[in-house]
């Protein structure tokens, strides 16, 4: 039932929601917006009602034809013979008594719309508390009659008027209608006023339609007929006239731009009502048509300009339009301009075609697909739908299932709901589109689908990984790949023109592509194991929390020597000193720690570093590649498992928590390698309840309310990014914010990762008995920060020198966010260490705080200029092989110290094992074969099941600050 709801009602409720938001942005009044919505819906339903009327007439005609024959049969025969003859009659007319329902299909189609409207309006919280006319609160019953509700009676009254003005109703239907009106008076008596205002308005419009129909002036039909007739009549127009028309578009644009310019209109209009653009647009239309009239007064048909005029208006891609109209609608309407112009040019260069007319353009558009236009439209709509809403999101999800909170089988119905929504929109477009424009739809749709297919599957510029909610190569987004768009467009047009010659293959190509994409998405879904993908680790952590008093599942023994490893993903060692300068207290709060600034990271991404951090130097990528006898998963999981195995063998309990390695279900492999699995807890994701608690604490409870929709929105936005032309990509990307919902998704991840560190004091306890090994991996420093700053860290001296907001503002946006995240991570860690001190487990715990790699400009595919000029090339530039590395041995005292000892983060495991050896607490002797090397690659390459495929290995022979000591070793993949 839920799936049915998602596939049928949810898309409609979404459409209603979008329409209502648009109405709201125009009117800025919740009540007026309801009336606007009602007008809009009534207009959209006109074609549906016409279809319904057509179906009813056909059914009625069939009944008229069969009725005399049935009467004759009834008069001539009885019993079995009569039944047999009537069956024969039905068979002759291909009729079945159930087919009587066909005539009500059109109206049945309305029922989901009605439910969709109900769902949207009854769940639209922002409407609460807003008055409209005499109604004090649209979110509550009106209580206008001294406590009694007036609107239900008004609605019923209008209902009755509608009932008695509908011309086609019989007496019996009116009685039924009466009963139904009474029924809904009872059902909706206590409904919010908004619902009743909307439906009353709907019924008022129905009454108006009935009255118009009665007087044979049914506006919708007459208007359509009128326009069709005008277009049929259009005389031949010269190409010159068309070119003049096109030349007038810039004039309209310039005029619109002038009107929209700050200061042109009075502030009372432009500031108080953002919809002031509409007066501007109306003036533009008037001037545009006046200009065309005077320029081509000599018998020129103004009707000719309508499509161009409308398109021109949508070229006014100003701030006003951005806020009012969704970008995709703008893009679609802009594309409309290109198509007729293209057809004009096409005709212009055909021999013996000096003159053109609209009917010829229409014929040209129709000729592209011949009589299969409708089939092509359907196939293309389905192809685009599968590509956009099923294939691309599924492919994206499958590339990193661990990044998502929900398993794909939970998201799939939502994706399906969008697919249905898309098909519905396409159907509505077809139904609403006047006949003279409908001829262009197959051509247009085919063109769009070819461009989308090309963008999604053929022309792929490398944007780097989509990490968090930022692209790795943000600079690639802002670049204008005009040549690619032009090439794609020309290729698509050429393909459509060429395919005209190959009649049989055109549908075949689209059909096959669509089928292949559908099969790929289905195959993935069928072979995908949702338990492995998302559920198990989280379930295990929840069990662990429940099993421990107050949920404090991280234990520290007050008897033995505990080991604690905190991996701060992508913590950039370059800024560490700055953090200490901004908050000198950290030096004391990190007492006993030694910071090693000359530390080399094993790899430039998590997957290349983590196995070596937990397993030691023998698990660096080149070492793993040398062993060809096993899969990479085998080797990586063995590396990760080696640390807990050593500790559990020595009588420790172990907890490994966090992603560790994204992009693969590595924990299920690690579990197989554990020698004492009963003593080890593996937990990947933080439970939502803890995330919510954390969000409450930092004052952002609304951000913790994530659901499947957020992830679906992210998938769809990135899918949209993938399929769209390059000139649209920057708008979709919108400086990494994607869309508000997606940002919300990103925020949830930020919350989860920050909760893992921030809640450590609340989740830890001290116990006697077995010492523990705790490995935490948090991406808090990886997330670029969107949380309100004030809600996270109290600013000690607001506006002063140490105000994080001040010093962070001096950096580039991205770097600033990174620094901000890191600063918070350190602050929370310091809080946790304070807790450890207070509870007497700081001294007896060996702690390593390290990052797996630096936050260099994460291209994933190589090395590109950094976003921030202040970050220099070399060590502090895009290539920065260093990482954060701090160690606190047990019983170490004194402020945080610095050591210039050359280290690598592959030393982590060896240092942690010192806890097993007992005092004296001295650094371990490092392996003589150890070489400080840094592997570079893309996590996509690295996630190959057999081996790492890296871009190269950087050997650091001397001090990391001395770039002359760097040596490339590109022979790593062998």
């Amino acid at each position, binding site marked *: 039932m839920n799936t049915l709801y998602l596939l049928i009602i949810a898309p409609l409720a979404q459409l209603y929601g979008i329409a209502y938001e648009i109405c709201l942005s125009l009117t800025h009044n919740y009540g007026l917006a309801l009336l606007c919505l009602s007008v809009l819906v009534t207009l959209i339903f006109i074609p549906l009602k016409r279809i319904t009327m057509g179906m009813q007439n056909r059914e009625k005609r069939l009944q008229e034809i069969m009725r005399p024959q049935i009467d004759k049969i009834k008069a001539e025969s009885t019993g079995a013979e009569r039944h047999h003859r009537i069956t024969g009659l039905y*068979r002759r007319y*291909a009729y079945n008594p159930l087919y009587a329902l066909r005539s009500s299909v059109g109206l049945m189609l309305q*029922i989901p719309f009605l439910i969709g409207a109900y769902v949207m309006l009854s769940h639209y919280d922002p409407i609460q508390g807003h008055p409209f006319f005499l109604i004090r609160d649209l979110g509550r019953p009106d209580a206008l009659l001294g406590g009694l509700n007036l609107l239900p009676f008004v609605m019923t009254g209008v209902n009755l008027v*509608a009932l008695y003005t509908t011309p086609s109703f019989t007496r019996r239907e009116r009685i*039924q209608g009466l009963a139904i009106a009474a029924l*809904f008076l009872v059902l909706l008596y206590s409904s919010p006023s908004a619902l009743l205002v909307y439906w009353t308005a709907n019924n008022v419009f129905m009454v108006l339609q009935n009255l118009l129909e009665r007087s044979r002036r049914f506006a919708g039909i007459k208007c359509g007929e009128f326009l069709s007739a005008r277009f049929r009549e259009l005389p031949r127009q010269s190409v010159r006239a068309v070119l003049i028309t096109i030349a007038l578009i810039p004039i309209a644009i310039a005029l619109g731009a002038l009107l929209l310019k700050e200061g042109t209109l009075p502030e009372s209009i432009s500031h108080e009502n953002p919809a002031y653009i509409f007066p501007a647009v109306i003036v533009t239309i008037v001037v545009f048509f006046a200009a065309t009239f005077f320029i081509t007064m000599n018998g020129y048909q103004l009707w000719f300009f309508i499509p161009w005029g409308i398109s021109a208006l949508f070229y006014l891609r100003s701030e006003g339009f951005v806020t009012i109209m969704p970008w995709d609608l703008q893009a679609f309407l802009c594309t409309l301009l290109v198509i007729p112009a293209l057809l004009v040019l096409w005709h212009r260069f055909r021999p013996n075609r000096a003159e053109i007319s609209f009917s010829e353009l229409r014929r040209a558009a129709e000729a592209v697909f011949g009589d299969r236009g409708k089939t092509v439209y359907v196939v293309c709509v389905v192809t685009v739908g599968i590509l956009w809403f099923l294939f691309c999101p599924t492919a994206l999800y499958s590339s990193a299932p661990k990044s998502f909170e929900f398993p794909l089988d939970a998201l799939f119905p939502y994706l399906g709901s969008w697919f249905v929504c898309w098909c519905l929109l396409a159907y509505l477009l077809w139904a609403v589109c006047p006949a003279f424009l409908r001829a262009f739809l197959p051509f247009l749709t085919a063109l769009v689908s070819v461009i989308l297919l090309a963008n999604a599957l053929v022309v792929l510029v490398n944007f780097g990984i989509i990490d968090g909610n930022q692209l790795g190569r943000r600079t690639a987004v802002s670049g204008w790949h005009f040549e690619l768009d032009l090439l794609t467009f020309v290729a698509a047009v050429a393909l459509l023109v060429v395919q005209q010659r190959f009649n049989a293959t055109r549908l075949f190509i689209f059909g096959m592509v669509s089928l292949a994409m559908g099969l790929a998405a289905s195959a993935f879904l069928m072979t995908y194991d949702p338990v492995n993908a998302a559920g198990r680790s989280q379930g295990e952590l929840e069990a662990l929390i429940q099993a421990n008093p107050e949920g404090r599942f991280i234990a520290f023994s007050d008897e033995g020597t505990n080991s604690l490893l905190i991996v701060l993903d992508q913590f950039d060692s370059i800024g560490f000193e700055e953090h200490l300068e901004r908050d000198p207290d950290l030096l004391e709060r990190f007492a006993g720690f030694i910071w090693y600034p000359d530390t080399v990271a094993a790899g430039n991404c998590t997957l290349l570093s983590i196995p070596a951090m937990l397993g030691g130097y023998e698990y660096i990528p080149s070492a793993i590649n040398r062993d060809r006898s096993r899969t990479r998963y085998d080797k990586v999981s063995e590396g990760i498992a080696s640390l807990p195995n050593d500790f559990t063998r020595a009588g420790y309990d172990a907890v490994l928590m966090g992603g560790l390695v994204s992009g693969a279900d590595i924990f299920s492999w690690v579990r197989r390698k554990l020698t004492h699995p009963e003593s080890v807890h593996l937990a990947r994701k933080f439970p939502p309840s803890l995330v919510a608690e954390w969000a409450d604490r930092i004052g952002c409870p609304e951000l913790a309310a994530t659901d499947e929709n957020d992830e679906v929105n992210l998938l769809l936005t990135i899918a949209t990014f993938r399929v769209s032309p390059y000139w649209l990509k920057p708008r979709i990307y919108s400086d990494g914010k994607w869309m508000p919902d997606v940002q919300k998704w990103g925020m949830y991840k930020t919350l989860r990762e920050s909760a893992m560190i921030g809640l450590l004091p609340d989740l830890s306890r001290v116990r006697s008995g077995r010492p523990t090994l705790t490995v935490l991996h948090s991406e808090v420093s990886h997330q670029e920060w969107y949380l309100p700053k004030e809600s996270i860290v109290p600013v000690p001296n607001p506006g002063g020198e140490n105000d994080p907001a001040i010093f962070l503002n001096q950096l580039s946006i991205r770097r600033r966010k990174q620094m901000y995240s890191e600063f918070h991570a350190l602050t929370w860690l310091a809080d946790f260490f304070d807790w450890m001190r207070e509870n007497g487990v700081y001294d007896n715990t060996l702690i390593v705080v390290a990052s797996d790699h630096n936050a260099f400009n994460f291209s994933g595919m190589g090395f590109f200029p950094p976003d921030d000029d202040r970050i220099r090339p070399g060590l502090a530039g895009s290539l920065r092989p260093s990482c954060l590395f701090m160690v606190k041995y047990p019983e170490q005292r004194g402020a945080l110290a610095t050591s210039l000892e050359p280290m690598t983060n592959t030393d982590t495991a060896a240092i942690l094992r010192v806890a097993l050896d007992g005092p004296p607490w001295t650094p371990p002797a490092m392996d003589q074969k150890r070489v400080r090397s840094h592997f570079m690659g893309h996590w996509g390459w690295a996630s190959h099941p057999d081996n790492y495929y890296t871009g190269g290995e950087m050997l650091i022979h001397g001090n990391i600050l001395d770039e002359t000591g760097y040596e490339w070793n590109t022979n790593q993949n062998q």
Partner: protein
Amino acid sequence: MKYCGLFTCLVATFMAFTHENAFAYMDPGTGSVFVYILTSVCAALLFLGKSLFYRVGAGKRLSTRTTDSHQQITLFSEGKTYWFTFKPIIEALLERGQAFTYLTMDVEDPALAIEHPLMDNRYIWSGSAGFARACAVRTKVMLSTTPNIGTPGYPMPRPRHVETLAHVMHSVSGIDLYQRHAWDCYDAVLLANDTFRDTVRRLEKLRGLPEKELPALGVPYLDVLLPLAEKARRDAVPHQGTTVLVAPTWGELGTLGPCGDVVVPRLLEAGFTVIFRPHPQSYTSESEVIQNLESRFLHHHGVIWDREVDSTASMAAADVLVSDQSSVRQVFAFLFEKPVVTIQKPIPLDAFEISDLGEEPWHTAAAHRMGSVVPMDQLDDIVAHISQAREKSAADLAAFRETCLVNFGRAGSAVADWAIARCANETVLAGTAQKASA
């Protein structure tokens, strides 16, 4: 059943008092449809129950399914427009006791009203669905008035399980003004007369096509019109003066505009009585021209505006017909034996078979034999051309008819006999082949 709606309302009202919330809102109109849906479902279930009951009681005796014998001959009609072509064939087949199938794409086809055990008549839906069903037919002989079956671009490919696909003529003409390749996929074309055979053979040779069967069997629809014409002639009221029937066809080949602007005014000036009969399709496709002409002639005392479905009364009343490429000319000349003035409108011949033949269309010569021909630029002289046409006597026209048509008045029987014989031959051939292979 008739209380079903009321019952539903009562149930709904009861539910209203037992449930706190609505889950949607329905206006009374939609609510009535909801009730209608429930009523229809009940009716359908009742009908299904009856069917099961009688099937159990009567077994297969009451089956209405198609039998093998029905599949020998199939008549395929695109719509009720071709009813007059198929009617004499159907009657002849039934007279001969031959079972057959009749498929139509028009729910208003009068053939569907025939209830006969030998006739398996069915509506197969219109549009692509109808063509798809027609394509799936298994039969020995399929008779169709539809040209172009199997031509690239036409929605209906040649049915694979039809042994002989035959085209039945629905007008007196040869192949020359059919669209190019219109008959290429046919196994047989039932010609109006032997004289049309040569052009078909030449085209076959030109394109390297196998020779198709080309029996001359006549035009069946004239079988139906002949008695109607005789009746109309009998019923016609004798009149004074000359009455001219102006009946242009529609579309690009038609001359509705020029007829209204020039021909009718000239005829009225000459004192003729005019019966103006536009093609029924003109009322839809050329509505504005029609409106214009109606404003001028609908209430004109010298003009009788004819909108009747049956044109025979007008034909009987008229002395001369003025028309263009319409096939009404042959009906007028051959059934009423009265002269015809043909308005010669230049036609781009590229799309027609005649363009490959490189000769003058048969229609051009035929127009002269039926009366006279007036070019578009000489419409002002229409009266003179009428006088010239009236020089053709009834005997001349009857003689011309004999050269154009065989089996006049009994073409339906001839087509039925041919189809039955074709089936029999095929059966024998198949049997022989089976014996030979055994």
